[in-house]
């Protein structure tokens, strides 16, 4: 088991290396000269050379790539923003916690609302409740979050004046951005939970449980629920990673100083070190979440757990037989 976990942890390294190379190459190949952009009208050949050397842009593709990776690994240095000249790590430290809190809050709400509704809808399949829930979910899944955000902004912020429309200063100001993240997610999780649950309650072992004389509520809680939740772990892992990355659209509409707005302004200003850094950070979080999902699986699903334990046993056997042959 430990071996498996270790292997999975080590696997993050090549994936992250791949992401770095892809992201770096995309921005490297992008037309436009950042040095020119920064210098603007104050261009002279000397100043150009000095600035290029300062930014490390005088080296070739590989030189730049290696330097970039080296700085990140050894000093956690993602470089500085071309625009503000503030180190990117500093901005991360200020902004990422904000996006993470909104994201985690949304994920919690999604789980608290989406899972029970999905299960309810599956258990009461073909009922009026099921039809209304699935219809609602379909409609919410079709509304882009920016539409939802604007609607919330206009109705509750502007027309009714109940909730603040920007910033995160008071408790109230969290409501709209969190909801804009939550509602489409609830719809998705509900649909997925419903499908999984429907599949589970048609399994033979549920019939076996019924034939034992167990109450429906016990069958649901003890026999169906865990089997239904196992496949949902993957989806939740991905969702947490993506929501905590901060939504460019929602953060922009509500004027929140999180990762989304940072990335957005960087994109508009073609501030490549910032774009690279943001994408890398988010990809890293996704990798770590995937890792956690895999490890969680190995703990909660006995089939997967024993797969790894068995592998170890067979490997041992092979080595002993080899030793015997020798």
């Amino acid at each position: 088991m430990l071996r498996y976990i270790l292997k999975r942890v080590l696997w993050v390294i090549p994936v992250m290396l791949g992401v770095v190379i892809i992201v770096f190459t995309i921005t490297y190949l992008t037309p436009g000269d950042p040095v020119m952009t920064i210098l603007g009208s104050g261009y002279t050949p000397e100043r150009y050379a000095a600035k290029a050397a300062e930014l490390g842009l005088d080296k070739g593709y590989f030189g730049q790539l290696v330097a970039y990776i080296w700085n990140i690994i050894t000093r956690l240095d993602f470089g500085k923003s071309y625009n503000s000249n503030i180190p990117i790590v500093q901005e991360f430290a200020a902004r990422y916690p904000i996006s993470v809190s909104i994201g985690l809050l949304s994920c919690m709400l999604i789980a608290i609302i989406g899972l029970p509704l999905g299960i309810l809808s599956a258990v009461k399949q073909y009922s009026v409740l099921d039809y209304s829930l699935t219809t609602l979910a379909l409609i919410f899944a079709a509304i882009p979050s920016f539409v939802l955000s604007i609607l919330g902004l206009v109705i509750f912020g502007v027309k009714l004046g109940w909730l603040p429309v920007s910033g995160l200063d008071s408790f109230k100001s969290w409501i709209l951005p969190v909801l804009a993240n939550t509602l489409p997610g609830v719809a998705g999780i509900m649909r997925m939970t419903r499908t999984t649950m429907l599949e589970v309650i048609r399994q033979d072992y549920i019939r076996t449980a019924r034939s034992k004389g167990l109450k429906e509520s016990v069958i649901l809680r003890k026999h169906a629920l865990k089997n239904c939740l196992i496949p949902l772990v993957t989806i939740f892992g991905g969702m947490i990673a993506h929501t905590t990355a901060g939504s460019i659209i929602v953060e922009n509409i509500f004027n929140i100083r999180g990762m989304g707005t940072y990335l957005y302004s960087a994109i508009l200003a073609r501030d490549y070190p910032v774009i690279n850094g943001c994408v890398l950070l988010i990809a890293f979080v996704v990798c770590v979440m995937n890792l956690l999902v895999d490890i969680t699986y190995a703990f909660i699903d006995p089939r997967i757990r024993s797969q790894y334990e068995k592998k170890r046993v067979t490997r041992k056997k092979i080595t002993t037989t080899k030793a015997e042959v020798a």
Partner: protein
Amino acid sequence: MSLLEIKHLSVQFETRDSVIKAVNDLDLTIEAGQTLGLVGETGAGKTTTALSILRLIQEPPGRIKGGEILFEGKDLLKVSNEEMRAIRGNEISMIFQDPMTALNPIIRVGEQIAEVIRLHENCSKGEAMEKALYMLETVGIRPERSMDYPHQFSGGMKQRVVIAIALACSPKLLIADEPTTALDVTIQAQVLEMMNKLKQQFNTAMLMITHDLGIVAETCDHVAIMYAGELVEYGTIERIFHNPRHPYTNGLFGAIPSLDKDVDRLRPIPGLMPDPAALPKGCKFQERCEYACDKCRENAQMFTEIEPGHFVRCERAVRGEI
């Protein structure tokens, strides 16, 4: 009073475009401690009958249209859900066809057995687990393995666990739905032998559902042959095996190889079972019957006693023409 008496049971499955009559006007009786074999092809309605007894038919699309299922004189179709739960697993229990999927993959097998004991036998967790270990031993599995999960067991062993669950509360009636179909032939014999032994040990009556006449010969006291949702022949095992009267029963015997008779070729029954959504008028077997006459195509056949305890649903057999 018989242990189980099914009277005029009819079950349908209603889908958007058709009504499938799975069981039509079925009568069955099982005495305490006896074994009844219910034989028929796939789709004849055997499993539906079994699930109706436990009221486990999925509704919708299934529906029990009518009839009575009397268990010790009590109509199971009329008792409350609560009473029904007290009967399931305790007085009537069931062994399912596919042991691979019948056990919950994420609950330890010991717990899956102990669960049913705790539910029906008013005992502590520890006592229930103790009995579960005893049951495992009874079905020939080392009690240490109670902490294992189903996927760590072979098919035969899983079926043993299912049997242990079914027999844990010493039920009066055990319904075995093709308990050996999914197993290897060598394992089949072991499991059957064990079931026979346990049946005697616990003095349980059994409804053995199968399409294998060999299994019937080994385990049953009475046999009921089922075709397209109704019984076509019923009698003691000797009567049916030595003097089968219905052409379908005869066909079933003609389709199995025999060691002591010198036959050039097996004689499979030609054709397929009629579509249960569009059953023919008259005898259901007419299309495949070599003796079918005009009358068979017109009149529904009556289930008639041709000798004491031997019933046949075939007019020509009753008249002695076959």
